[in-house]
């Protein structure tokens, strides 16, 4: 992605207040033509509210969004035509079949006749569900619903696709399918805004990333640029069978330790759509950020050992977006 690439979406000082609460609080960023731009932030950061304003669903309290030269406030129709949207919720009709849903959403984007049928077939192909097109959405698994949810947003070949946490609550296989789909759509020339609270997804997909927290973009840039924000710090991840009381404070008290967080391990933390967790997992992931991981790791292990915790694994890594977030906010993305 060269810096000379043209911005197809420009967000300037965007604000949305609900009463006293600013859900989006002065956000600015550009999305360049042809890139996958990531908006990474924890739940409640303001991602959905931002996407709702870009897609003309919500009127901004102040600020401006320009999509493909058109303003969301002055020319929403042109903005909407240039955009495809994949909402965070599965916005489909459960008692209609996948085919019927796609035909309906295609018509809402002005498609009809032969072209509609072609695009529906193409979208079903992309979703990998052509053979189950005549089944009702309510009979689908969570992952399949998510795939049709995406298919419904791409039939009109939008210039920019807004995807709001399209992988929430699904099995790893469907998630991989979706991530590959996003890559493929981008390869075919679609610009993508991808929001998530999974840093792995954003690292895998995105050219540039905005990190958002409490309605503000706290960091913005290419992934390597963001990593450099953490400096030469490394992340020590310790997988524990349980979290003994007071152990986090003990770790924070160690010299050379910059910050400490504890989270449930990735994936297991999220219940899927049907409400069942993939497996019962009471283990804890403790992450310690330090410039001198080589020395600190011994101290960390001994503190944990004295506290009586059973260590399942220890791992030292280069900083990732998770550590960037940790470094900037002192908390984990999945808190």
């Amino acid at each position: 992605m060269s810096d000379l690439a043209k911005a197809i979406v420009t967000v300037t000082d965007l604000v949305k207040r609900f009463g006293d609460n600013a859900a989006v609080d002065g956000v600015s960023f550009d999305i360049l033509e042809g890139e996958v731009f990531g908006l990474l932030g924890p739940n409640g950061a303001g991602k959905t509210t931002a996407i709702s304003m870009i897609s003309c669903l919500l009127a901004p309290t102040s600020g401006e969004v320009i999509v493909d030269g058109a303003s969301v406030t002055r020319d929403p129709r042109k903005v909407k035509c240039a955009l495809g949207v994949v909402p965070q919720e599965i916005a489909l009709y459960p008692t209609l079949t996948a085919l019927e849903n796609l035909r309906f959403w295609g018509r809402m984007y002005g498609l009809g006749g032969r072209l509609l049928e072609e695009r529906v077939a193409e979208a079903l192909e992309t979703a990998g569900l052509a053979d189950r097109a005549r089944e009702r959405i309510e009979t689908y698994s969570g992952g399949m619903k998510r795939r049709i949810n995406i298919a419904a947003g791409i039939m009109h070949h939008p210039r920019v696709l807004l995807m709001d946490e399209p992988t929430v609550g699904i099995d790893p296989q469907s998630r991989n399918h979706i991530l590959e789909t996003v890559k493929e759509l981008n390869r075919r020339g679609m610009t993508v805004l991808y929001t998530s609270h999974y840093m792995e997804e954003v690292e895998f997909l995105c050219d540039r990333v905005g990190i958002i927290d409490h309605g503000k973009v706290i960091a913005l840039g290419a992934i390597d640029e963001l990593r450099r924000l953490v400096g030469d710090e490394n992340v020590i991840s310790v997988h524990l069978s349980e979290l003994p009381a007071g152990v986090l404070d003990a770790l924070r008290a160690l010299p050379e330790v910059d910050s400490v967080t504890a989270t449930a391990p990735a994936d297991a933390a999220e219940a899927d759509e049907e409400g069942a967790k993939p497996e019962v997992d009471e283990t804890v992931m403790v992450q310690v950020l330090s410039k001198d991981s080589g020395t600190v790791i011994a101290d960390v292990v001994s503190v944990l050992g004295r506290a009586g915790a059973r260590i399942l694994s220890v791992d030292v890594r280069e900083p990732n977006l998770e550590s960037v977030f940790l470094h900037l906010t002192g908390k984990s993305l999945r808190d």
Partner: protein
Amino acid sequence: MRWLHVGIKDLTVTVRDRGSLAILIAMPMILIVILSSALGNLASNLGKTPVAIIDLDQGRVGAQVTDGFFTDPQLTTLFLAQRMTDPIEARALVAKGDLAGALVVPADFSRRLDTGRSSKLTVYTDPGRQIAGTVFRSVAESLSTRVSAASIAARTSAYYVAPLRVRDPGFVYGVIGKAVQSASETSALSAVQVVESTAARGTELSTLSYYAGAMSVMFLMFGAMFGAFSLVRERDNWTLPRMLMSPGTRWEILGGKMFGVFMVGGLQFLVLFAFTSALGVRWGDPIAVGLIAVSTVAAATGLAIFIAAVAKTVRAVSGVAQMLIQFMAAIGGSFFPVSQFPAWMQPLHYVSVNGWSIDGILATMRGASAAEVLPNVAALLVIAAVFFGIGAWRLRWE
């Protein structure tokens, strides 16, 4: 054309939902059959029979005939009598079905009888309520007999009053038979002749016809409730926001939702119309029925938007809708005919969709033309516009 696609989508979703179909179409069918067979002929079995007494005589003998309708405890349990002064107006009310009958005592009644001449009483009855009309005529005859021959009157009054309080159609028929027989026996002795005149045109309105109209209208209101459900649900599960993010305008989408509710209502009406017609209900002039049906469905559509705007959640929709629907059904005559209500309550039925609609349907069933039901159509369209106006103004989109 987005509105068309949204409407067709909504119709498809509704038709595919067995629960909705059961409530919107099967339930009214069942209720129409149950209510009409359980209640039999309305006029003879439900409440008091409304009649008008017009005493143009204002003399002693006229009072002897008419006072009984207000003072005789047995007659007052049977009839809800009101005094009127204009026979033409009374006749019109009977023709409309608002009254089951009217008794007119001519102006020279006392003078003629006092001078040994004969006179005539006029009775208007509604052929749509044969039983009530016949009973009323018999009573009038008996009363007139009492005037002309007190001894015979004593004998006749004994049989017509006592059994009539039993609400059993078979019994009532028996009584009428006796009443008619007695009338013919006593007429020879009578100086007063009762001239019966049919006030209305159309055919008999059976309980079946009544409930065919009343229940269809009530369940069109439930159709509106389902329309409101659909709007609120689409708002919650992001299909409405998704539509709003597509290039369509709010008005296209709201228009589509309304079109969907309208088509569901139209479908409901067509099915119920076909079903009750097969059972023998004659709805009347197709154009008049069509006008009433379309304007009623329009009012229900407006009601759907109104409910969705007032209620924020699916649960609230259900609460608001049931309250509104039951209120309108009760005062509008979906449960019991408005003519059976106390007089002070009757005008209230015009604040409901049901009142205007049932009023119109009963008129077409009695033979009214399209032109004659235009006031009802206009009133329903005004209600539709008011509901829609408030609804569209207050609707929360996101």
